[in-house]
């Protein structure tokens, strides 16, 4: 027994050491960025040390002020606004559509499912021009509409993910709900939606992160600096012809990481809880 205990503790120690070492490698580039956000512009490419010699918080102030007419306050507000609305829209729509594809044996199902896959296989650069023309004709340029409204159609990635999860859930649950007098929408909203919670939460995290990070969409559709998102603003720091304010880039880069990290930490707990809360027992 004691032998087992020692083995257990030893195993645990080795486990943690390996995980921490690997974790450090995983994190090294991010630590590098954070450390650079405090360094003097001149020191960034001189020293490889992770610990800055001086802590210059004015990098953050300078980065935040941006070009002095629009600041990162605006960019963060815009990013939160469009990210949150799109995420809610895409996750709910995707779960509805996924239910349809996974559970309703309607005619033409596999055709449309195939179409959905095709949209994922076409590189965006190719449909970018015609799509822009459509949004232009609709008069949606310079608003968040082209970024938000298509999200309410659901995302093929999420739909596919949720279909995979729904298929794992026994049909008996649907049948017994039907006997209890539930219609399809009630089966979806009361039985299946709570059961695919891990997939819904995973999608939420991804959606939040993707919208937050999206560069090309905001670049094409938003022309006014007042509408810019953080990811778009971040790319505007660099111009090959003039000297680049790297400290400010890294400072703002660090800040833009925080919201996604917080969202991950909040929702991660629910993924981990998994089935415990869903009430699927026995």
């Amino acid at each position, binding site marked *: 027994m004691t032998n087992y205990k020692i083995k257990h503790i030893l195993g645990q120690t080795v486990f943690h050491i390996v995980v921490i070492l690997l974790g450090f490698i995983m994190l090294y580039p991010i630590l590098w960025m954070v450390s650079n956000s405090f360094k003097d512009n*001149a020191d*960034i*490419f001189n020293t490889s040390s992770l610990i800055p010699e001086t802590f210059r918080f004015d990098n953050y102030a300078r980065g935040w002020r*941006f*070009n*002095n*007419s629009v600041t990162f306050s605006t960019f963060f507000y815009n990013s939160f606004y469009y990210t949150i609305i799109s995420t809610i829209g895409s996750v709910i729509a995707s779960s509805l559509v996924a239910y349809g594809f996974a559970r309703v044996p309607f*005619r*033409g199902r596999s*055709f449309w499912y195939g179409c959905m896959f095709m949209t994922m296989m076409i590189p965006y650069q190719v449909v*970018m*021009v015609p799509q*822009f*023309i*459509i949004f*232009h*004709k*609709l*008069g949606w*340029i310079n608003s968040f509409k082209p970024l938000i409204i298509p999200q309410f159609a659901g995302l093929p990635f999420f739909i596919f993910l949720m279909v995979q999860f729904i298929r794992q859930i026994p049909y008996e649950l649907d049948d017994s709900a039907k006997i209890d007098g539930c219609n399809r929408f009630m089966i979806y909203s009361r039985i299946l939606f709570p059961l695919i919670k891990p997939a819904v939460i995973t999608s939420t995290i991804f959606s939040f992160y993707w919208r937050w990070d999206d*560069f*090309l969409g905001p*670049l*094409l559709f938003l*022309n*006014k*600096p007042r509408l810019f998102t953080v990811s*778009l603003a971040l*790319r*505007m*720091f*660099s*111009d*090959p*012809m*003039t*000297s*680049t*304010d*790297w400290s*400010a880039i890294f400072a703002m880069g660090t800040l833009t990481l925080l919201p996604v990290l917080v969202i991950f930490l909040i929702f991660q707990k629910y993924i981990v809880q998994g089935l415990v809360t869903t009430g699927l027992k026995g």
Partner: protein
Amino acid sequence: MKRNLLIIALACMLLVPSFIFAQPAAEASTSGTMRLAWWGNPTRDERTLKAADMFMAKYPEIKIETETTGWGGYWDKMNTQAAAGSLPDLMQHDYAYMLQWVSRNQLADLTPYIQKGIIDLSKINDSFLSGGRVDGKLYGISLGTNAVCLTYDPAVLAKAGIAEPDSATWTWEDFERIALEVYRKTGVQTIPFFTTDPKVGFDNMIRQTGAATFGKSGLGFTDPAALREFYAIQLRLLDAGALIRPEVAFVTVTPEEGEFAKGRSWVEFIWSNQFVSTQAAAKRPLKLALLPNIKNAKAKGTFLKPSMFFSIPASAENPEAAAKFLNYFLNDISVNDMLMGERGVPIPDDVRDHMSTKVDAINKQIFDYISLASKNAGPIDPPDPTASGEFLKMVRDVTQEILYKRVSLDAGVSKIMTQGNQILK
């Protein structure tokens, strides 16, 4: 069942275009509002926005809406807007894309606005304007002058006991001798020439032979000797160990990470408006020099190039306001005092003279270099042909093949000649 699907699909396809294209594209243009687009960085953005504000204070009847992004993304955005017919009224343009846009009738001729007196070019030497001219029409006005140059580290030369070159007269032979001697005495190497765009380098040599890189259809030169020499010098230096290895030199880096900034090369090949960033990255005193001459040079290799233009798209809704702003931006002393030559050395004589007394030491070096270059410059070649993008990619590929020693010098050069003529035909 299959048929039903088909009917549904067809119905969708028929239905959708009608509702999308039924909407009229034109939104009522409020006369007096103009859209202005440029690529930049926060510093340029701040100054350009201020210029717009100053203009609006002076001409309250015109309202300017600004659009800006970094260089990465600017052309994706502009091309897309061009396809949709929603270009701004005034846009910053680049020499490399000029002809492409002109040949597709995307840009407006500015001559009428000059005739109407909206744009005043009286203080501008014609040589500064020729870069924006295609077939006698003016499609863009330079916002600053640029010239190709070589920047070197005088301290390294002093350490090696080498006299600084007389940049107007030195030759590639001198260059090669200096490079070898610097390496022998200090261990400091030479960077491969123009790694991001090798054409800029051999173009200078070809121009010195009296020819041009691009012809009407195909290459503008038939004798590959100058092109061959461009690579031969580098290969000789490489074999002597004096050239920085291509594995290191061809990695895309920021100026701060470059071999020159790190002090491993005594020289770097740049455009003069890159000098500010090169200097800031190198953090040591630097000097500017003209590219060396070839043996028996028949013409000047260097030329003055517009660093960027302002152009009015053909589809502009308010071109007169755009022209008015362009004139203000170009000629007004007080606005240029604020802009501080950020887009390059200004082209109107009075503005340039005024500015040269005001700029800091680094920019003064650029101003001086431009005046040296203008004394040693030939006329600019016509804008790059439409297939130039593909040509430059091929040249860069072959350059790597030669320096990585994947192909021989002769094979590489003949590849550029034959493929170049194919691509450009």
